[in-house]
């Protein structure tokens, strides 16, 4: 009998919890937002909810590929997504992105002209840039001699067991392809085969293939050299002054993350208002303090801390940018990358 009473109480309690969730927000517009983890100052969400009387349903994802699967599976009808260049390009090509009404986004005027028309949105119709950055090498100056300038550091046998690579195929291949002097977007099988050999040859030197752990491991001195995105590197440098970051001279990847509205959206106007809100100068500055990536905001860049302004990870010089290349959507050739990356890991 006791058991039955317990189950009954549990059932009532659970039903109360669930009704608690559904009531209260009945009349409010619910905005479904999808973003990378740790990629927005959460206070901004609260502030937007309060000042515009909108409820934000916020979800996160780890890699662009996860985002693609999540959006295509159709479990949630997202209203606003923040993601990366080549994956946005893929969704635009597939007709999944709505054209924006820039009249609802007056703050768009502050976005740097260089980022308004990008390879993935050549006419500037679909996206509002969010942050941008580079792919480079973060190293520990107490463990690495001199000032390295090349990708060769990741293949240096002197640092065997102290090198961190990324468990992200495009980035890891990017490093190998650039070291060989090829394009990051090559679909040439013999070039990819060379890159594969290079990555297999590097494997005994690699401590681990990770993504999210790189920052903490470098701060904690677990490794000497790591392939990393600039924002993560800047955040790590803020916590460990022995770390330094550079974009290798052979060239590298530059990426732009942007906001867009997928065709599943039911609240396009509110989503555009949210884009405008995030592009305000004050809010951009708050966000910079949280995510540490380079800003596309022409006003905000002049008000960041000196530590950031002088940091080559946050504010790279123009000659670094001339050597970089953006990832493009590879279409069906992507399968080739998957296959070769599996071969590298399985080796």
């Amino acid at each position, binding site marked *: 009998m006791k058991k039955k009473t317990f189950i009954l109480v549990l059932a009532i309690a659970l039903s109360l919890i669930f009704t608690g969730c559904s009531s209260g927000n009945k009349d409010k517009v619910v905005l479904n937002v999808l973003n990378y983890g740790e990629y927005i100052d959460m206070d901004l969400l609260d502030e937007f909810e309060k000042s515009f009387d909108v409820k934000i349903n916020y979800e996160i994802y780890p890699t662009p*590929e996860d985002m693609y699967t999540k959006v295509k599976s159709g479990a949630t009808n997202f209203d606003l997504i923040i993601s990366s260049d080549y994956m946005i390009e893929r969704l635009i090509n597939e007709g999944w992105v709505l054209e924006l009404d820039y009249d609802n986004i007056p703050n768009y005027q502050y976005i740097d002209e260089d980022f308004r028309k990008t390879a993935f949105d050549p006419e500037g119709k679909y996206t509002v840039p969010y942050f941008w950055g580079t792919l480079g090498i973060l190293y520990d100056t107490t463990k690495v001699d001199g000032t390295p300038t090349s990708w060769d550091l990741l293949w240096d046998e002197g640092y065997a067991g102290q090198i961190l690579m990324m468990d992200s195929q495009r980035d890891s291949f990017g490093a190998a392809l650039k070291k060989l002097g090829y394009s990051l977007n090559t679909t040439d099988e013999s070039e990819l085969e060379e890159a594969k050999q290079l990555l297999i040859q590097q494997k005994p030197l690699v401590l681990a*293939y990770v993504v999210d752990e790189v920052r903490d491991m470098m701060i904690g001195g677990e490794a000497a050299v790591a392939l990393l995105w600039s924002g993560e590197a800047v955040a790590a440098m803020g916590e460990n002054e022995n770390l330094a970051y550079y974009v290798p001279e052979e060239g590298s990847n530059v990426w732009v993350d942007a906001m867009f509205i997928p065709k599943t959206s039911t609240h396009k106007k509110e989503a555009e208002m949210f884009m405008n809100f995030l592009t305000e100068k004050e809010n951009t500055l708050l966000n910079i303090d949280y995510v540490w990536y380079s800003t596309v905001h022409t006003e905000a860049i002049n008000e960041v801390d000196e530590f950031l302004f002088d940091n080559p990870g946050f504010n790279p010089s123009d000659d670094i940018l001339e050597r970089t290349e953006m990832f493009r959507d590879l279409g069906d050739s992507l399968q080739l990358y998957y296959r070769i990356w*599996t071969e590298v890991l399985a080796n």
Partner: protein
Amino acid sequence: MNKKQKFFAYPYVVWMFIFIVLPIVLVFLYSITTKEVNNIKTINFTLNNYKLFFDPLYIGVTIRSINLALVSTIFCLVLGYPIAFIISKINIKHRNTVLLLFILPMWMNMLLRTYAWMTILGNNGIINNFLNMLGFPSLRLLYNNSAIIIGMVYNFLPFMVLPIYTALSKMDQHLVEASHDLGADNRTTFLRVILPLSLPGVISGIIMVFMPAVSSFVIPRLLGGNRSLYIGTLIENLFLVTGDWNFGSAVAIMMMLIILVSMSILNRFDVDKEGGGSNLW
């Protein structure tokens, strides 16, 4: 079975259909088609996904996963049997407390327990700091196969200990006494009486450890640093990164087959069904 009892089974039958049968059918459907299965008109059947699995690349991954799971299972058995035996010999008053203490870590999230091992084994971890303090150089403990095996044995040991413990404690103690009365020494009693009677527990323990060990992807990722590919990670990548649900489903079905086959082989050893090792849980 009378009508009333059947009525009570319906919710479970519905539950089983929605959450067990239907997903398996869907996974199977994906594994024998190309691309989407939502539209019946454009559905396209193929066996290529299975053909691809027999590529040496993926066979290598499978063999490596099975080896790793086998090693972990053996370690669990070697450690787990004595532990279960000792617990079953403890005075009944304290036995439940000891058992509770043993299960206690399982109340924590597995991810947290695995992360804890990262801070123990890391280059600046507890063990290496201790070694450095004594003047020894650091050892590379994390991101290799031993780290994965440590993680698996730690996480899955209770699944080995509990069924063996149940088999041992359910055993009729008079049989042991009878064996002694008939002149058998401790060793013979153990080998000819206790061990055979606890075999059902051992078998379900092996199954309970081998199954999660062969398919685990969190432990190889966190403690192995993804330096080699295992079948669990392969399936995860195929679904989440590659978005190739069809081949991913084929690999998942093959893994289910491997587990089913190894379970049926093991069940042959369970000669007398009286012990009911498979009914323990």
